């Protein structure tokens, strides 16, 4: 079953900083259960594609379907809870980690979902974060702690598709292993799919079953099975 389908994606001018455009057109199909690694040299458009898939970048062209339904104008907020993009870096806001986690339930599109503190804390613990840490300001956290809090935030939203951009770049081996465990548990909860950008070939091998490779000029190769 196709979970996410992108047709003819093109990003002419990426919104943020010096990010490369996505010359495309890129077609991408993600089946339920699929775990896709995006590879390619830096600057080839991996991040831009992840952002385009979560509709964070204004598309020059193309459309996206989730479970066979096209995402129409106005449906982006709800869509982004389903297809959740986790940026490589999170802002170090002057905000406690707990307040930041709770933020995920403030938008109207959260509907009836409430912030469950116990669930958040147990996820933190599983990722090797102390409970007391959620009381600290994001600005005081180490890079690795912030990355793990960001994953907790992403998992609390219970997305169907996670778009992860170098999610463990600041983690040591032990923390990375816990991170991958949590991700594995999430993947097992029904119709889930993952798109991963990671510089670590072993991690791509562990987490993903397929890959697509960007060439330096920004064209995206066909889907290959990772063995």
């Amino acid at each position, binding site marked *: 079953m196709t979970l996410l389908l992108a047709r003819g994606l093109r990003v002419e*001018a*990426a*919104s*943020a900083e010096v990010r490369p455009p996505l010359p495309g057109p890129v077609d991408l199909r993600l089946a339920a259960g699929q775990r896709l690694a995006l590879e390619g040299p830096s600057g080839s458009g991996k991040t831009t594609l992840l952002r385009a898939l*979560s*509709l*964070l*970048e*204004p*598309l020059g062209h193309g459309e996206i379907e989730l479970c066979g339904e096209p995402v129409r*104008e*106005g449906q*982006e*907020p*709800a869509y*982004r*809870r389903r297809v*959740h*993009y*986790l*940026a490589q*870096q*999170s*802002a170090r*806001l002057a905000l406690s980690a707990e307040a*930041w986690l709770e*933020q*995920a*339930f*403030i*938008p*109207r*599109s*959260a509907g009836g979902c409430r912030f469950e503190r116990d669930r958040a804390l147990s996820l933190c613990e599983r990722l090797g974060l102390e409970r007391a840490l959620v009381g600290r300001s994001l600005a005081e956290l180490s890079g690795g702690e912030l990355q793990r809090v960001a994953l907790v*935030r992403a998992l609390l*939203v219970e997305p169907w598709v996670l778009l992860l951009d170098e999610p463990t770049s600041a983690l040591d081996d032990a923390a990375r292993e816990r991170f991958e465990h949590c991700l594995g548990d999430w993947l097992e909860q029904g119709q889930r799919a993952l798109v991963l950008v990671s510089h670590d070939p072993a991690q791509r091998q562990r987490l993903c079953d397929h890959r697509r490779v960007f060439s330096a000029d920004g064209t995206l190769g066909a889907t290959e099975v990772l063995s």
Partner: protein
Amino acid sequence: MKQVIPLSPWDLTVAAGLLLTSAAISVALQLGIGKRLVIAGVRTVVQLLLIGLVLQFVFALERWWIVVAVFLSMVINAGIAAVQRLDVRYPGIWSTGLTAVSISAVLTTFAVTEAVIGVEPWYAPRYLIPLLGMVLGNSLTGISLALDRMIGDLRTRRQEIEAWLTVGATSWEAVRPIVADAVRTGIIPILNSMSVAGIVALPGMMTGQILAGAAPVDAVKYQIVVMFMIAGASSLGAVLAAMLSFRRLVTRRHQLALHRIRSA
């Protein structure tokens, strides 16, 4: 009313000597602004003499269409000036500046001349033009501060905004704190001058009326009206500027469109 002591050209020349103080400081400290100081001094003299002549002409004729023409050119100039101060712009920013300046200034000026002072006829240039001038001078500052803050914050706080967007916030939910900060920034100057008015600074208009022989309490009443008028115009201008730039830099698909921002 006592007569104002008229100033002769010689008096103005003596006053120009005061500018030498600034020039001397510039030379002594090697500030390198001597030339700019002279140019600014000359501009002050030329611009003010010109506007003095124009006003004398407009006051003497008292035709509504001449007043309206002066009025419009002041508003347009203010709109342009509000944008010209910015280092970063986006396509359509001139219309943002003009819209924000004209709506905020026209509404508040006419509210004061019609509802508060009750000027007869409605276009009486002696009231309309100085009041508009004061409103414009302040609202354009509020507008350019709000725009500057808005554009700057959208860029520097992009991660914060996108952290909201990725958990399903609408663009308004995500950018509302940035809009609020921009509006606040635009209003701060008038807030400051309202709170120090009379204690630290004697506002220029009031001083002028007193010099012209008005009773201080009458001058104060006018100054109060003017302060409130400026506060209204600055707030309205800042809100309009922030909202209009929001519509240009955020797409209908709840995305930031920061690639539209260019350096001036």
